């Protein structure tokens, strides 16, 4: 149990709460972004090893002993990917929001009843 993992979980819960309760579409997108950040934090914290440094071989990291001095590079690579995908998805959602606002003149999610069951 680490502090960063718990903070990531808290961020996920906050984001999910925001997505479920907010009425404004922009705020829902913000909730998604917060949840995204929480997931990234958890992934990074899983790859983190105590008292170790970034996985870059330079003057601070001896190449022969690198296995015992660097953190796991794979979660870092995964998070890098996830951040870019998150950015792309957020941009796409915001452009949906722009279009919806042009159509109805409001961002209140309750005004969009077409797909309601």
């Amino acid at each position, binding site marked *: *149990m*680490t502090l960063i*993992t*718990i903070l990531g*979980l808290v961020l*996920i*819960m906050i984001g*999910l*709460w925001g997505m*479920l*309760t907010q009425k404004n579409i922009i705020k829902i997108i913000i909730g998604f972004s917060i949840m995204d950040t929480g997931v990234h934090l*958890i992934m990074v*914290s*899983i790859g*983190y*090893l*105590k008292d170790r440094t*970034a*996985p*870059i*071989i*330079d003057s601070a990291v001896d*190449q022969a002993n*690198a*296995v*015992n001095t*660097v953190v*796991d*590079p*794979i979660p*870092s*690579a995964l998070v*890098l*990917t996830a*951040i*870019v*995908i998150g*950015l*792309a*998805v957020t*941009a*796409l959602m*915001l*452009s*949906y929001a*722009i*279009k919806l606002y042009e159509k109805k003149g409001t961002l209140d999610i309750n005004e969009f009843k077409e797909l309601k069951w």
Partner: protein
Amino acid sequence: MVKKIFIVIILGFFAVMLLPLAKDFTPFQELSPVAEKYVEDGPEELGSANLVTSVIVTYRGLDTLGEVAVLFIAAAGVGFFLRKEEKGDKTPKRGSSQILQSGTAFLFPLILAFGVYIFLHGHLTPGGGFQGGVVIASGMVLLLLSSASAKINENVLHLVESLSGASYVAIGILGLVLATGFLDNRFLDLGEFGTLLSAGAIPLIYSFIGLKVGAELVGIVNNMQKDQS
């Protein structure tokens, strides 16, 4: 009221589902076997000082190609939703302030140079194609903010994006033909470890990724800005 109860129940389910991660998770004491292999053999095999880069560009290069494809589809989606017919009746907009204009004139070339620096040094320092591309795009956002009449030539944008994307795949196939596998960087000389011209094709691949990501993000911002005018 019913809705609120539902929300509480859903949140409760999620909390219970995620709780073991916080409660029972013990931090690892050493690297996983896969990571160990990457850290041990990566520097000699691929010549890249930044091990995250060697994972992203080479060991997991195919995933990165998929990621670039996702980014491309998202950019195409934004372009599709925000496309607009050119209308003649454009009201002249108020120009931006003198501070923003002077600041942009000073900062814009520096930001571009910094973005290029980040993706060229992706195999040596923290950073790489995606980060460099985003920095370049942020410079372009500054340019669009500072002058209301600034127009980005979309043909150039599309040309840069398609060419760099095609070159990225072409380099991957070159690796398949000349070296051992798709996106293998070893068909170029590995060079001296830790210098700019090292790590085989990694700087080349990351430069193309940087240009592609930069062009795509500028396209997204450009579409959103056009939609507002």
